[in-house]
């Protein structure tokens, strides 16, 4: 495809959920749309490939969702995880938009399934994509293709061209060559910067080089950095990323969902020196995996080891990698490269601190230790029954918070005012709403709602200008 000779109305940087929603809305409004996707086709769709659900407001049962989930409850859930680090106006737009978005998604090819086994807590609030996020990405790409949207793969936007507050085109690297592509407007939906390890290391410190990246290696934040360098207003803490504790043997990039490791509450976790460092039983895992991302990041070499015995072997979701196993604690420590005496001592101290009581893996059971520091305040059973099993844990980065500030119309702003014809959607602007923490399925909500807004607004502004009108 000769994209250099294309003269599109709208360039969309990225090809994940937010980018596709924008492209579809703009194309349905008559825009000629060119999507520039940095990844090759099999990896298209950024981190949307790894998602699985969409948090949706609803006043009555809708599609696969039961009961009701109102704006007030939704916003309260959001404020709880972000500790108030939220632009409430934008948050309400995302929340309200989600209810209308769900039937729109179905009409544009997305198929939902009942909430997956083991996700009962989300069955009222989150609609699950049949087959997960890649199936959603495929469905939207088919819809976009039918609408005449052009997608260039392996086409990374390197620079955005501005004339004052006006976008004029981009420079993209396509197959090793740099191409200038003019266009009348742009939607920037190319994700965060978590795959740029140097950037992560400069923001977080050298320890970040040992982090695993759970999602795509193509979210390198090139567009984000270029816009910030050109004076776009930013939101979100530039030093922060959302990291969770995952299987330490996961691939450096793109391990996705299967690298989750939810054995921590039923284990004790030691660092490289064989010492415990935090209460493993503080809370249920879905509320705690992010805290453990930070805890592990603070340990030597950014690695930790969860140790369980035979009693706990079936208490958590199956893992993609089998654990190391041994019939003695010392043997297990040696297999994992830990000092055996130190680990034996830690386990013995912990076991001695365990007290009788009833274990309940499904809820906070109050089965806690006494006289060991740190304590384990739930699920504290002695580790006594061979075979013993061990899993390495490392921090896995899900996304970064730094992004572009947008208004309710998804328009990107410079420090003085909005750009005339640049919009943003998805992870690149999610920091406006999700300034801290994470709420399951909310990234897809932000991407879908603001992607649609960005596409519609771009079409409205660009077509009124084409018709001789002026833009707002």
């Amino acid at each position, binding site marked *: 495809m000769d994209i250099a000779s294309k003269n599109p109305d709208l360039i969309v940087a990225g090809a994940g959920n937010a980018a596709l929603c924008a492209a579809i809305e703009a194309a349905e409004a008559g825009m000629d749309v060119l999507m520039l996707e940095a990844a090759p086709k*099999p*990896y298209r769709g950024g981190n949307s*490939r*790894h998602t*699985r659900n969409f948090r949706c407001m609803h006043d009555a049962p809708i599609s696969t969702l039961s009961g009701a989930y109102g704006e007030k409850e939704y916003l309260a859930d959001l404020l709880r995880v972000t500790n108030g680090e939220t632009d409430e106006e934008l948050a309400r737009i995302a929340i309200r938009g989600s209810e209308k978005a769900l039937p729109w998604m179905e009409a544009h090819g997305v*198929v*939902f*399934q*009942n909430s*997956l*086994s*083991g996700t009962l807590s989300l069955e009222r609030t989150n609609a*699950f*994509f*049949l*087959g*997960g*996020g*890649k*199936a959603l990405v*495929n469905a939207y790409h*088919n819809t976009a293709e039918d609408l005449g949207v052009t997608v260039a793969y392996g086409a990374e936007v390197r620079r955005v061209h501005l004339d004052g507050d006006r976008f004029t085109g981009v420079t993209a690297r396509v197959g090793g060559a740099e191409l200038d592509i003019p266009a009348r407007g742009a939607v920037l939906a190319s994700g965060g910067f978590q795959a740029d390890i140097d950037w992560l290391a400069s923001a977080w410190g050298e320890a970040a080089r040992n982090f695993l990246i759970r999602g795509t290696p193509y979210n390198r934040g090139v567009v984000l950095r270029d816009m910030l360098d050109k004076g776009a207003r930013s939101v979100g803490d530039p030093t922060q990323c959302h990291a969770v504790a995952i299987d330490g043997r996961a*691939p450096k990039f*793109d391990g*996705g*969902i*299967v690298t*989750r490791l939810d054995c921590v509450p039923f284990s004790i976790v030691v660092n490289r020196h064989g010492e415990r460092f935090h209460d493993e039983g503080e809370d249920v895992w879905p509320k705690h995996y992010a805290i453990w991302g930070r805890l592990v990041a603070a340990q030597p070499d950014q690695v930790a080891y969860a140790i369980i015995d035979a009693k706990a072997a*079936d208490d958590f*979701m*199956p*893992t*993609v*990698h*089998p654990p190391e196993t041994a019939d003695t604690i010392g043997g297990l420590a040696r297999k994992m490269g830990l000092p055996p005496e130190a680990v034996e001592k830690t386990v013995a101290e912990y076991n001695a601190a365990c007290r009788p009581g009833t274990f309940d893996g499904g809820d906070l059971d109050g089965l806690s230790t006494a006289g060991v520091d740190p304590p384990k305040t739930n699920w504290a059973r002695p580790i006594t029954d061979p075979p013993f099993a061990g899993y390495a844990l490392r921090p896995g980065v899900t996304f970064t918070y730094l992004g572009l500030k947008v208004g309710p119309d998804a328009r990107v702003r410079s420090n003085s005012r909005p750009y005339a014809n640049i919009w943003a959607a998805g992870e690149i602007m999610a920091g406006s709403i999700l300034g801290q923490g994470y709420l399951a399925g909310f990234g897809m909500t932000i991407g879908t709602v603001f992607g649609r807004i960005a596409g519609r607004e771009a079409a409205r502004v660009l077509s009124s200008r084409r018709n001789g009108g002026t833009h707002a």
Partner: protein
Amino acid sequence: MLDEPPTATPLEEARRQVRICNACRYCEGYCAVFPSMFSRRSFADADLSQLAQLCHNCRGCHYACQYTEPHEFALNLPAALADLRAEDQIRLAWPSGLAGVFQRSGVAMAAAMAAGTAILFLAVAALPGDGPGFYSHLSHAAMVAIFTPAFLFPLAALWVALRRYWREVGGGRTTLSHWRDASLAAATLRNLSGGAAKGCNFEKGDRYSQARRHAHSAAMWGFLLCFASTASGTILHYLFDWPAPYPFLSPPKLLGVPGGILLTAGAAALAVLKLKSDSKLGSESAWGGEMAFTLLLCFTGLSGLALYAATGTVLVAPLLAAHLGLVLTLFLTLPWSKMAHGFFRFAALLRDAQRKSP
């Protein structure tokens, strides 16, 4: 372990992939394979065999998978299960050597077709006719003498294979509700529906299509109607002393003509869809045998219709020989050809019904 290239045996490769799937679970809604898989934490050989026979190769899971190549996990579950399915059907067949030939080799199937047809040409030429219609070319007694053993022996062989399968996968006593659930799943091809979606991801890549489900339904129901037609003729012949030829308004014709049309059209459509689909998402080693079998079904239906259309012409003798030759081939190779998949699949559906409500 996970980043080794897939050079393992079908069983090892299926185990490697299923372990990854079981940690992900995004595909739960597509078909019966996933709830069955997710009910376990570890997988014995027979558990994997059961998953392989349950898989209908709709491919929805593959196109939805974030771990397909070039990802280092290199998942291709439809192909892994198809390879294991073919291997198991060969391993469990009795005698298994024949299955190895007919499942894998399109050339062998074609040779069998030629041989079957040749036998019938010789029979028609050598044996005396006796009666009206096509019996004037080959007597009823000769047909019975040829087809009774050609029907009963393969069924007995198939029975041996299915018993082996049932034992391996730990099947127990079945109830009426198990049979009802399995029959409903088979009759509607529930597992080609894509769950909540609109069919398979087969001939149009990641786009959903009902074409394969419809084509397979036509071929399956067409075959069953043709079988019912023959059975009704046998009943009329022996119980009602009403031998062939039958008029159009008679059970054999009313079942056989629509059956033949459905079988011919369905099998032809399946062959076309197979050509359009990505062969890497099935068992590549079994492709030739599968295609030859599909064409055999198509030619069997077509020759039957042609025979009826040629009534009263000089073409009856050669068409009779051709049609009966193809039917003979179909039956004689039944336990060792792609045809066996229907029986194994039903056994797997029955076993799955049992798992869901023991």
